[in-house]
């Protein structure tokens, strides 16, 4: 397992994938964060409440929603890329235990996702707190709450990246996997979660966004309306279970399939 982990970490360190995805996540988070901060309290369109309010500051901190999706896509690219670039043959020649390879990929994807999440969380926190301070607002959220949302982005990104690694290995065709994950996060969860609100907290993207501070009807991107978040540790457990289930299914599938 150590050899597999060492190889997978080295793969990530020797390409620009993680850096590029992190830059993308930070850029999107910054764009949404700034737009939200500038329009906060104006009541226009998708504008969030004033940064002087608990809801407004929380929504602004939760502008990492798209970054969470980028983390999931990072996981998808890490595994599906092996099939797209035909490097899977060498990978499974060098490490014939395919379950072990899948586990190593899930762990490295989670680590890369955490890195991406940290950068995104720092960006959203910096923007929200700076804008609030610049306007002379008192801090509307206690420090532990801010820390919890920030940690939620990091944990959510890590677990979504691991789940994405499972999805990418299951679907293999990279473009199809990317489209599936984006459609799942931005469309299917919205429809399913809004239709059956009890299911909402158990949907992966919704759960991760709620960890990061997102609430129903607030901020961008939207999560299903009417969904009540589970307690913080339970939400982490739900996300971890989804990631583990996807990665286990991927490991079983790749072990049984032919590498042609």
């Amino acid at each position, binding site marked *: 397992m150590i*050899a597999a982990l060492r*190889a997978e970490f080295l*793969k990530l360190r*020797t390409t620009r994938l993680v850096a590029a995805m992190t830059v993308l996540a930070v850029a999107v988070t910054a764009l949404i964060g700034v737009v939200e901060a500038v329009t906060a309290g104006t009541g226009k369109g998708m504008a969030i409440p004033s940064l002087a309010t608990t809801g407004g500051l929380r929504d602004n901190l939760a502008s990492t929603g798209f970054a969470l999706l980028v983390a999931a896509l990072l996981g998808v690219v890490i595994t599906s890329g092996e099939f797209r*670039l035909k490097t899977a043959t060498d990978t499974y020649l060098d490490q*014939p*235990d395919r379950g072990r390879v899948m586990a190593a990929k899930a762990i490295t994807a989670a680590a890369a996702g955490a890195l991406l999440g940290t950068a995104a969380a720092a960006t959203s926190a910096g923007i929200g707190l700076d804008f609030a301070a610049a306007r002379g607002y008192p801090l509307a959220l206690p420090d532990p709450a801010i820390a919890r949302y920030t940690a939620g982005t990091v944990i959510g990104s890590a677990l979504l990246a691991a789940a994405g690694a499972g999805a990418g290995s299951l679907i293999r065709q990279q473009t199809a996997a990317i489209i599936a994950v984006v459609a799942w996060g931005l469309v299917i969860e919205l429809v399913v979660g809004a239709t059956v609100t009890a299911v909402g907290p158990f949907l992966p993207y919704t759960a991760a966004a709620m960890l990061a501070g997102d609430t129903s009807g607030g901020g961008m991107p939207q999560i299903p309306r009417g969904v009540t978040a589970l307690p913080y540790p339970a939400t982490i457990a739900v996300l971890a279970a989804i990631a583990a289930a996807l990665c286990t299914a991927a490991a079983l599938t790749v072990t049984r399939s032919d590498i*042609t």
Partner: protein
Amino acid sequence: MTVIEVRDLAKRFGQTLAVDGLSFMAGAGTVTGFLGPNGAGKTTTLRMLLGLVTPTSGQALIWGRPYRELGAMRRQVGAILEASGFHPGRTVADHLRVRCAAMSVAPSRITAVLAETGMAGLAGRRAGSLSLGERQRLGLAGALLGEPDVLILDEPANGLDPAGVLWMRGFLRRLGEQGRTVLVSSHILAEVAQFADCAIVIDRGRLISAGPVTELMKAARPAVTLRTPRAQDLRDALASEGAMVRAVAPDTLEVTGLSAGQIATTAAGLSIPIVEMNAGPGSLEDAFLRLTGTEGRPG
């Protein structure tokens, strides 16, 4: 001592039987050509041998064990199956570092294999910028990282220019001289004759012939090679007499099924000048086509 053994191996993909009851062996220290037309089942067989494809039935063994069960001995087996299986953004050295990490091989081997494959100056180049020949060499370098006793190579000379083919031929010959067991698939048959001790010929997933290359050559019919400025006219005339005629060049024909005297008589009767004529043993291609029954069949 048998190193590679394939026993009653079969693989079915849906309705297609890619490999059909194939059995053969390769002994220690031999270089074996694994021949067959496109779609014969060569790559599928090699992938089963390396544990990447699960056989429908039968066994593919190295040192008496499936590849996945070789444990640490796996490092003693090197393989190339994908000519372009590299991340284009990763450098040559980094690609080999990743493989060293996965195989638990000391990274100090990288310098040695790069030198061995003539890639020493390309360590910092990104794989995406390499030519096909350089990528084939990088594949070989990766296969040699574990200092393997057994090498399994799928069409390593495919797509190479003449200089690359020449280099690859010499390289494979050297591997054989070092006492390694090498199994090389190819459909460049003349190439295999240059470096292989033995040849295994398969077609449609079945074994056609197995034995020393010299034995395979005996299956070739005597052939006459001639040069004439009226190649098409002579070709038509000889074909009408039942000869097998192949245009080797615009003015050069290779004829089987007629003697040199018969060809000369036919040409003289039509006043077709023959500039040069040589009678000799047939080519490996001819032997291969006869064995596999692929004469006239599109590849």
